[in-house]
Structure formats: structure tokens, C-alpha cells
């Protein structure tokens, strides 16, 4: 085995690290536009899915332009904020701000029958990592029109089921308010919800923590929009 001097070892490591750093940053910069495009398409697909429009990677951008007719940002009193593009608002960053400074995006979808659906983004903590989604409401700002949930690393076959249709479908038609002013959100009940209960859906057996996290996410994200929901409904 050859002997290497300390100077050689230091020079070797420094050169190696610089070369590697250059290569990696070059690759990251070159691939960034592709990656951003993917993330944008995914977000558009999710928003479309929440108003029950199926899209593929190819047609998502066109469908989004067709169905999502308006979007705006609210503050926590439900007042519209001017000059901010709702699509660029990341809920992840907003949730780390104090409640009064948060920007809350709303996307307005116009469906084929010309009725509107109001899409609100959701984000929370699951069992292993973040969970997120979108929920769309009918113009009464009370009845759920559609939902989509996704997750980073929930247990496959258990918590991960929140991203499947059988879990999301029962949300349709549930309502957020009791007696029109009391915000109750939607509960995710272990052991099954009664069919006629307007504020509850079935939880996932074996996925209790994810189910409970999802319930907490719905409650904490939607309650921020409560002033807006009540104002818009009375207009």
C-alpha cells in the first residue's frame, strides 16, 4: 500500500469536493425547469381532481385553464388580498406564519353546468410525514363537492388509503356547518359513521392515526376560512 502525505490527502479531498459540488449544482440547475413543471402539473391535477375532473399529465394544463376560472387570496378575516397569485402561494409556508399574516388561497372552478365550486387547499401532519389535499365546496359554502388527499409516506395499504377513491368518495355531500353557523367540520370515525350523519365519514381500519390526522387537518385548515364562508354565503 502506497503512503500518501497529509498535504496530498488534503489537496485530494478539496479538489474532489469542488468537482462534485460543481457537477451536482450544474445538474440541479439544468433539471430544475423540468422538476418545477412536474410539481405545477401535479398541483393542477390535484385541484382538478377536487372538483371531480379527471386529468392526465398531458391535458392537466389545458383542463385547468378551462375549468378553474378564478383564484384569489384571503386573509384570516375573509377579505380578499389584491396582487397575489393564489397558485404561487404554498400552504406549507403559510401555516408556519402567525394566523393574522397567513394568505389563504381559494380557487374557483366553473363546472360544465356553469355552477361554481370553491376549492380550498389542506395540509397537515400524518403518521410518518405530511398529508395534504384539496376540498371543494358547493356555492352554499357548506356542502362538500369533492375531495382529494395525498401523502408523503403513510403506511401502504393502511394510512396510504387516504389517497384512494373509496376513502374520498363518502366526503361528497357532507356538510361543514351545523344549524348554518356552527362550524363542526367533518369527523373521520373509527368503527364506521352512520350513513345519514352529515358531518362524518368512515375511518380506515388499521390506519387510525392517519384518519385522525386527516380529521385534524380538515378542522384546522377549514376553520380559517370560516369568516369567508359565512360572508359569501349570505351575499
Amino acid at each position, binding site marked *: *500500500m*502506497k503512503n*500518501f502525505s497529509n498535504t*496530498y*490527502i488534503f489537496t*485530494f*479531498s478539496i479538489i*474532489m*469536493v469542488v468537482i*462534485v459540488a460543481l*457537477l*451536482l449544482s450544474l*445538474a*440541479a440547475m439544468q*433539471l430544475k425547469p*423540468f*422538476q418545477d413543471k*412536474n*410539481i405545477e402539473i*401535479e398541483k393542477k391535477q390535484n385541484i382538478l381532481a377536487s372538483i371531480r375532473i379527471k386529468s392526465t399529465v398531458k391535458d392537466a394544463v389545458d383542463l385547468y385553464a378551462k375549468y378553474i376560472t378564478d383564484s384569489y387570496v384571503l386573509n384570516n378575516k375573509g377579505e380578499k388580498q389584491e396582487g397575489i397569485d393564489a397558485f404561487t402561494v404554498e400552504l406549507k409556508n403559510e401555516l408556519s406564519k402567525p394566523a393574522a399574516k397567513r394568505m389563504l388561497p381559494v380557487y374557483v372552478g366553473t363546472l360544465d353546468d356553469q355552477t361554481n365550486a370553491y376549492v380550498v387547499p389542506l395540509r397537515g401532519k400524518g403518521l410518518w410525514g405530511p398529508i395534504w389535499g384539496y376540498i371543494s365546496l358547493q356555492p352554499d359554502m357548506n356542502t362538500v363537492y369533492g375531495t382529494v388527499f395525498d401523502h*408523503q*409516506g403513510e403506511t*401502504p*395499504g*393502511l394510512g396510504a388509503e387516504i389517497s384512494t377513491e373509496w376513502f374520498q368518495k363518502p366526503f361528497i355531500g357532507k356538510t361543514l356547518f351545523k344549524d348554518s353557523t356552527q362550524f363542526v367540520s367533518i369527523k373521520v370515525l373509527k368503527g364506521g359513521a352512520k350513513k345519514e350523519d352529515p358531518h362524518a365519514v368512515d375511518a380506515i381500519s*388499521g390506519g387510525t392515526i392517519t384518519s385522525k390526522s386527516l380529521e385534524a387537518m380538515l378542522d384546522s385548515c377549514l376553520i380559517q376560512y370560516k369568516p369567508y364562508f359565512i360572508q359569501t354565503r349570505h351575499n
Partner: protein
Amino acid sequence: MSIISSKNFKLLANPLNLENPVTVQILGICSALAVTTKLKPAIVMGLSVIVVTAFSNLVISAMRNSIPPRIRIIVQLVVVASMVILVDQLLRAFVYDVSKQLSVYVGLIITNCIIMGRLEAFAMNNKPWPSFFDGIGNGIGYAVILIVVGLIREIFGAGAILGYQVVPQSFYDAGYINNGMMIMPTMALVLVGVIIWIQRSFNKELIEKE
């Protein structure tokens, strides 16, 4: 001279059976358990590991005479880590849905014992070209096991292959249900055990002497 000499061919073929990194050397088990619930992530993970082992073997072998032995593990780690980051970035740019499924496991290729094992055992002492084949061979040896386990787990755990339903609805109507155990990492370990058992019953030389 042909591109693949018989010596290089051996480097490719041996890891498939008698020197299989998973079933004989018991390396890389951790990721074999994690990404095999469905077939597609197993295939992509297999391909990514083939690329990373092949190219890190190639690079390390080309540098082997200038790497100071005292910091060789660090140098290997740097090379492997940058390969893995490159693969991760490429997946994110071009096969986004797969990269989402693999999520953290791509990053975990860095800690895959097969890669460091091959670098230490082969690339540090051999020329770049044979090292490259050794990397591909071991990568394939790993990928084959992952694909077999992934196939079995998806068929019995979800009744599907690559997301297409293969167990007909009439089976479910007749009372058949998917085996939820198959989705658990435990069953991957049991399946790897069964594969090792079958392999050894065909290759007596693998059985340890008392």
C-alpha cells in the same frame, strides 16, 4: 477481442446465482423489504441500483491508484452519494410519479450495503472495465430478487400486476380477499427466506458444512 470477454461475462453472471448479493451475501435486505410492496417501484429501484453500482464502481476503479487509503471510505461515500443525488434528480425530472413512490428510498441507496461492498471488495483492486461489469452484475442480482418479491407481493397483496387487476372480480365475489400480510415488510423477509431456501436446494455448494 469481443466487448464482453468470458471473464467479464462471469462477473456479470455470477451475482445472479452463486454470488447473489441479496440471497447469498445477505446485503441490501433493508431496501428489499421497503420498496417491494408493488412491482413498479421494485423495478425502478432495481434499475437505479444497477446504474449507481455500475458507475460508482467505474469511477472508483478509475481513481483507485490516487485515492489515499486512509480516506478511501469517505471518497467512496462522496462518489456514491453524488451518483444517488443525480439519479434522484433525473427521476424527479422525468418520471415524477415513480420518484414520488420511491420517495426516501432513492436517498437510501447511499446506505445500500451492496454498493459499498462491491467498491471495497472489487473496484479498489480491479481495472475500470471489469469493475463496471461487476457493478452491473451485482445490480442485476439485486434487481432480480426485488422484482420476484415485488411480483409475489403485488399479486397476493393487491391482486394486481403493475397496477392491472389480475385476480378477477368473480374471485372476490366468491369470498377471496387480498392478503393484507403481504403488504407488511415481514412478508418480504419471509419471501426472501423462501427464495434462499429454493436456491440452496438447487445449489448444494451454498450449504454450509457442519
